[in-house]
């Protein structure tokens, strides 16, 4: 799980162009949207694509993302339970 969390942090920084943020700046339980990392609705869509492309998880309802993308901890748990690749 720790490897997956590290991978998620690296991918999020790269995919979402968070150039002023380093992996060490993101705690496992940091809130990703709103006042946390400040991600927005387009970032949420980008994360949905990332789940599909990297882990074979298709979210049919974008609203599911609100819970799944709460933090790195929550994302890693969801991915490890649902990944197909």
């Amino acid at each position, binding site marked *: 799980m720790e490897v997956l969390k590290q991978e998620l942090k690296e991918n999020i920084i790269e995919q979402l*162009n*968070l150039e*002023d943020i380093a992996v060490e700046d993101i705690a496992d339980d940091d809130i990703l949207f709103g006042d946390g990392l400040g991600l927005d609705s387009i970032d949420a869509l*980008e994360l949905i694509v990332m789940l*599909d492309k990297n882990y074979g998880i298709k979210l049919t309802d974008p609203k599911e993302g609100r819970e799944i993308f709460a933090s790195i901890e929550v994302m890693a748990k969801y991915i490890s339970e649902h990944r197909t690749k």
Partner: protein
Amino acid sequence: MESEFYIKSFCHIKDNKVSLNGTVIYNDNDTLDFLDFIKAAYRSFDTKYPKFFKMDGLSKLAFLASDLILREEKLNLEDENNIAIVFSNKSSSLDTDEKHQESIQNKDNYYPSPAVFVYTLPNICIGEISIKYKLHSENSFFIFDSFNAEYLSDYTNSLLSANKANEALCGWVEFDGVAYDAFLYLVSRKGTTIHTKQNIVNLYNT
């Protein structure tokens, strides 16, 4: 007929240089790649606007040139600012359009990026500037073969004469994926340089 409006300030970004009102304020001859250059220039001005890094090339170019002009205006960002935006270029959003096309080319590897797709219109760069400076105002983005000072000046004079805006941020912001050329200027009711086609052309060629 002489214009009743004035060019208050102007900004160029071209050939690895950024200049404001004719004075070079950033110069980087070592960086040849546009994205490296524009990010280095952005950092040198201490702008602190993380959304900049998410923008496509055209929006980065337009945003930085606009920001350098508008930051001097000391606008009250708590209120709406009635500054129109009248931009133009030749390549529209072609650089980003091509990136999006590449991502949907292969049906077996079909993962279009929402963050790329949202920039597949040239006027998105106007939105980026409007968000930062709370410009709830008239805006237009024209596509021309080359810089068309006459059209821009006529259109801007019409906007200001009809009181559709207090001021207008106008100009040319061109990025084709490699070459870039931004020349933006603020047209106001006060100033020293009269807003004429010839003066616009003169400043563009400065």
